[in-house]
């Protein structure tokens, strides 16, 4: 950790302007012969790298921790309503891969009621130990008891890394527990790797733009991250279970909550684009009524679903449930065709692990073409009706 220092003696009228322009956040200003950095600074340190010594970054010593006291890669097992959410299994597979680097064990933490069966099932997915907090206090998700059990586990077992599925439950629980540990949490990681010194490398899109950030938490343990469903692959189920189940004590103090759950209802069967094998995705370049109707038609011909980008949801053209991207759903279909979508990183993060990506856009420099497997530079309004016509003809043959 450290701070930015301006060497005012090197500042002059001729270099000041170029230095203020270095800052992508407009945080550097030049007044009365001196440079200053405002609270808009995001500490990206670009000014320190590019200003030729005018702005420098000074490291400050960080209190070291003994990382060897923290062992194990933990997967939080999301088991709402007695069902193991598949993101849990995907994370077990990833945890096993990460554990190969450090030789750490892989743990799962299960908090719920009557959870014996789910705990056993997890032993088919390469987990060394499943720790279970089983009590009727955990029947419904309430933040305080879940966070208390989670924190109790961390205090007793001291895992080095914690992987939490970015379900709606995981997205409340992980930050609550991470803050209690005064530790780092990275949301929506798309890549995870392990260093030999047990630092977890977390990669995610950042700064709200077309940039990836590689993030570590070098001075705190445990290191928390959340990962969305369908980012990693589900490992195959082993033919025999292995590992052991450890029952953890549930104390009265853990059960306390200011929240009372009155009624739980299943959501009506929802549009769920994350389960679709084929997706026809529509962006601003294809938002006319005619093109949206054609997109629907193509989707139904291919047995798929229509999805969209954020601007179309903001213009009320689509239900938010159909939105792909960081603020929408993550999808991983076998085939996705992106119509008139520029491909901002927010969108790309939600679909780029799709097996086959086709992009149709009239702007050949659109970033979508950086991730597409098949790039079609052209007018959606010209190409889409022809695809539909061809498919109809092919189906009739």
């Amino acid at each position, binding site marked *: 950790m450290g701070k930015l220092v301006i060497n005012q003696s090197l500042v002059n009228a001729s270099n000041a302007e170029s230095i203020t322009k270095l800052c992508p*956040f407009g945080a550097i200003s030049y007044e009365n012969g001196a440079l200053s950095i405002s609270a808009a600074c995001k500490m990206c340190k670009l000014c320190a790298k590019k200003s030729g010594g005018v702005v420098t970054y000074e490291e400050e010593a960080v209190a070291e921790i003994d990382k060897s006291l923290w062992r194990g890669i933990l997967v939080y097992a999301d088991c709402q309503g007695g069902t193991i959410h598949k993101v849990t299994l995907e994370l077990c597979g990833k945890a096993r891969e990460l554990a190969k680097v450090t030789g750490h064990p892989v743990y799962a933490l299960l908090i719920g009621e009557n959870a014996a069966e789910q705990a056993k099932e997890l032993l088919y997915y390469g987990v060394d130990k499943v720790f279970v907090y089983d009590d009727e206090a955990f029947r419904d998700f309430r933040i305080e008891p879940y966070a208390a059990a989670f924190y109790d586990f961390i205090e007793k077992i001291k895992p080095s890394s914690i992987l939490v599925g970015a379900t709606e439950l995981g997205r409340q629980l992980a930050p*609550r527990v991470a803050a209690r540990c005064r530790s780092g949490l990275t*949301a929506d990681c798309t890549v995870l790797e392990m260093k030999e010194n047990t630092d977890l*490398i977390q990669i995610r899109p950042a700064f709200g733009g077309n940039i990836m950030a590689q993030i570590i938490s070098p001075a705190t343990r445990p290191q928390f991250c959340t990962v969305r469903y369908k980012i990693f692959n589900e490992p195959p189920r082993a033919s025999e279970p292995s590992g052991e189940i450890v029952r953890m004590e549930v104390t009265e103090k853990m059960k306390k909550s200011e929240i*009372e759950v009155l009624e739980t209802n299943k959501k009506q069967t929802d549009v769920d684009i994350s389960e679709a094998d084929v997706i026809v995705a529509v962006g601003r370049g294809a938002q006319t009524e005619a093109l949206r109707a054609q997109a629907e038609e193509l989707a139904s011909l291919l047995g798929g679903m229509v999805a969209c980008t954020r601007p179309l949801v903001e213009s009320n053209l689509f239900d938010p449930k159909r939105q792909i991207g960081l603020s929408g759903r993550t999808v991983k279909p076998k085939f996705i065709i992106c119509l008139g979508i520029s491909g901002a990183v927010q969108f790309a993060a939600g679909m780029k692990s799709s097996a086959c990506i086709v992009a149709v856009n009239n702007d050949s420099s659109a970033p979508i073409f950086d991730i597409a*497997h098949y790039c079609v530079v052209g007018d959606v309004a010209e190409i889409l009706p022809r695809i539909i016509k061809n498919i109809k003809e092919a189906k009739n043959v």
Partner: protein
Amino acid sequence: MKILVCIKQVPGSSNVQVDPVTGVLIRSGIQNKMNPYDLYGIEVALTLKERYGGEVELITMGPPPAKAVILEAVAMGADRGTVLSDRKFAGADVLATAYTISQGIKKCGEYDLIICGKQTTDGDTAQVGAEVAEYLGLPNISNVCSVDEVKDGRLYVTAALDNKTVKESVSLPCLISVDGDINTPRLPSYKVKRSLTDDVVSFLSFADFSDQDPNHYGLNGSATQVERIFPPEKNTEKHTVSGNADEQAAELCALISKLKLI
């Protein structure tokens, strides 16, 4: 009821690119706006104020121009707000941001209800609300999709939780994060906007906080560290479908049939 809404000023566009030669971030024509998800939180607060009386305050963290979002919310009907602004807060991750906001809230006063939006459009982490609740020791409920009533010191809400909706009650004080699209946020009043004076905005800096350890704020207070930033990987197995629209459509159909989608 005394309600506090946490809001944020975000870049108007997410159009950020990396200059391939210099590696410098290019953010062309930045215009800032209120984080759109916060508008729903403000609307919830104003509706509760109309129904039960009380006051609606705002808190934000950012450079001094971030007071624009406070003024906008006041023009919508809120009473006043505070900007937490200090260079010492720069480079804060989720942990340090939540800590700074919680320190600011403690300084501002006591509230029955703290409301956050679902997430911001620039960070997209949706984590700060839950961490603020932890630092303040308050119960929190996320993904609130309707605020039903306040009765006997408890707030009754309906929240989404993955494949379920949950009706629940929570004792006040508490913190809730509200989903997008749960209401139609009112527009700022032009009349109020015209008569706005700067005294509806106050500023707090590091020097005002009770915790005077600079290592709890900004980059130094952040547990996560950005090791490097880089442009997203480009796909190398890329195939260009060329020709006129007829030829392009034909090639895509061949692909679709090769993949056995029809």
